[in-house]
């Protein structure tokens, strides 16, 4: 079996055209799609709206009162105190945020002001993509930060739905707009009080973004690294089937049968070769994406481990698909199986699985079908892993993938022409 495996690896490594298709094409496509379809994931040029609920837990008046009380305790000249209090009265922080979201970023987000419970329900029902929460004490902390340069910037909480797929740049865009507005308002307020305008920090607010499980939103490059990885793994399966067909037509397979080796050894050798190649292919793509496009950064060792585990299970699934293609190719003595898989079925699976665009934009039936494709469920598992979810949340996908793998492999063994492959 090892001999078959080594032979298959050696043959593929000497086939430059196949190598380019398998290892270079996914990277090129990832770059093209990552840049060209950035908007699909919520980039600035997109017309697609991000549905957001705005929850105000902060009481602006209380915050100002608290700020004034704090100011009174400070040892600063009375006139300065009066000017700062006057400036603080001119800065209505929740109002700034509300205006930015509802009037200036309407092309990116659609905002609905609501309470926390209603927002959580809507997020759970996938009616909205995220919740932006202005937490309690936000005004107080922000005023201390912008007017007194004390304390860290306040946290604006962004809670992202598990179902939602959007570019992290959209979040940066929102926060940047809010920060600029607060800076501007602060500057105007200070100017009107004839106080010295001190440089203000760009980081007027900080963000604390989370998915339901505290994950980072994925960037378009990350998304398409994963999308292309799960799609191009299919080509390894079809390549192996095409090579099996050559071995059959050139009667190499006859020689193998005549050697007394069980024909299944031929199949198992290919299975291991596919596992290794898929594992290598996916890792090459992720590493290149990470090094060149700074995708998946920062990433923890735990996330790396989980992603490698997903890759391993996906490699098993692809190897089972390869076995099925090989079995059908040899049984039907036709290259049509691998060529139709390459030219048609891969594209359909890639589309349904979300390799080209997130399937959340598709009708629910398509989403359901897509979630049952091996690439679809693997893509989902990678997404969750890259958002930092623990392995326990990914296990259901891995188990479902394993069941499909076992089913396909058993089917391929049943269909594999055992006794006389040439007959």
């Amino acid at each position, binding site marked *: 079996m090892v*001999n*078959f495996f080594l*032979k298959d690896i*050696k*043959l593929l490594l*000497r*086939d430059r055209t196949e190598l380019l298709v398998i290892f270079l094409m996914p990277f090129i496509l990832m770059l093209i799609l990552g840049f060209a379809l950035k908007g699909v994931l919520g980039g600035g040029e997109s017309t697609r709206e991000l549905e957001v609920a705005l929850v105000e837990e902060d009481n602006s008046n209380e915050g100002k009162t608290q700020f004034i009380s704090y100011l009174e305790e400070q040892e600063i000249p009375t006139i300065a105190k009066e000017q700062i209090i006057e400036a603080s009265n001119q800065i209505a922080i929740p109002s700034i945020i509300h205006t930015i979201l509802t009037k200036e970023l309407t092309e990116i987000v659609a905002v609905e002001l609501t309470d926390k419970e209603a927002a959580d329900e809507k997020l759970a029902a996938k009616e909205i993509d995220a919740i932006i929460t202005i937490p309690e004490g936000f005004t107080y902390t922000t005023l201390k930060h912008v007017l007194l340069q004390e304390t860290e910037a306040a946290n604006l909480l962004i809670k992202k739905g598990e179902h939602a797929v959007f570019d992290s740049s959209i979040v940066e865009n929102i926060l940047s707009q809010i920060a600029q507005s607060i800076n501007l308002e602060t500057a105007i307020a200070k100017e009107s009080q004839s106080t010295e305008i001190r440089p203000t920090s760009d980081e007027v607010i900080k963000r604390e973004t989370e998915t339901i499980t505290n994950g980072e939103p994925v960037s378009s490059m990350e998304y398409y690294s994963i999308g292309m990885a799960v799609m191009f793994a299919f080509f390894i399966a079809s390549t192996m089937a095409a090579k099996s067909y050559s071995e059959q*037509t*050139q*009667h*190499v397979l*006859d*020689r*193998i*049968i*005549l*050697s*007394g*080796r069980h024909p299944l050894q031929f199949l198992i050798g290919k299975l291991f070769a596919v596992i290794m190649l898929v594992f290598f292919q996916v890792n090459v793509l992720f590493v290149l994406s990470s090094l060149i496009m700074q995708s998946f950064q920062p990433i923890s060792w735990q996330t790396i481990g989980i992603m490698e585990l997903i890759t391993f299970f996906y490699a098993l699934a692809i190897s089972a698909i390869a076995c099925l293609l090989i079995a059908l190719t040899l049984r039907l003595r036709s290259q049509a199986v691998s060529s139709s898989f390459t030219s048609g079925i891969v594209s359909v699976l890639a589309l349904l699985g979300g390799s080209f665009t997130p399937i959340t934009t598709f009708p629910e039936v398509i989403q359901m079908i897509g979630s049952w494709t091996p690439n679809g469920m693997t893509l989902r598992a990678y997404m969750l892993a890259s958002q930092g979810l623990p392995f326990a949340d990914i296990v259901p996908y891995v188990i479902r993938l394993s069941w499909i793998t076992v089913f396909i492999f058993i089917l391929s063994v049943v269909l594999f022409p055992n*006794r*006389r492959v*040439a*007959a």
Partner: protein
Amino acid sequence: MLETESLRKVYKNKVAVDEVNIYLKEGESVGLLGPNGAGKSTLISMIATLLKPSSGKVFWEGQDIIKNPHIIRPTLGMVPQEIALYKELSAYENVKFFGKIYRLKGKHLESRVQEVLEIVGLKDRQKELVKNYSGGMQRRINIAVALLHEPDIIIMDEPTVGIDPQSRHYILEMVKRLNEEKGMTVLYTSHYMEEVEKLCDRIYIMDNGKIIATGTKDELVSILSSEETIDLVLEESSSAFEDALRAEEHVLKVTETEKGLKLIVPKQSNQLTTIFHLAEKHQAAIQSVSIHVPSLEDVFLHLTGRKLRD
């Protein structure tokens, strides 16, 4: 040693092999002669247990190998008509890979690899990729792989198709040595008459799926022992002349050749006068005439009415 019993293979409505009975004795070199499409490859695929017959049996050492293919497989060397090699691997890598799947190991494997490469004369070029070899060299490696596990019988399906005369001569000499010096039983299919004449002790002539004649070369030629062959080279073909010859009582067979006609006539029947007379009458210009004793080619022509390479 090897025997077929009423072997038959039918594809849909076409009978590829029809009730074939052949046998091979140990150490014998047997030729299977027939034109393309005669059913030779189908027959040997069934013998090699690669193709299931529609009916009939194949026995190896008295045991039915259709039911139990593993009986013959370890002792069989198969040289298919196709180059059954990995062309992206070197000759050495190919031979070694097949050696390993034949369960040869370690030093024994390495020595066998070098031995067979020596036999086929490619030891010095063993590191080159097979795809860079000439057709003749690829065919030699094709044979080398079949010899690796020291089989008792080797089945060769037209191993010299499409190669240069030098490589062809090398392969023929090699097969002859394997048979004569190593006592290997050989079943050799070809549509080259001279190859079978040179290599084989006995010959089966096959056409349209059937064995139409069998025997040693002398026995087959004796089919035409009372006849002789006249080859006529004509300036231009003449159907009137050909028809007139066919109408002649003592001209047994008339066949068109590349440059004229081939006639089979009774020995010492002095037909030349009649032939020249008819040529003059039908204005057919004869460039040359040759009379010779029948060859296997003539026997085949006589039996099937067509040439081997038609």
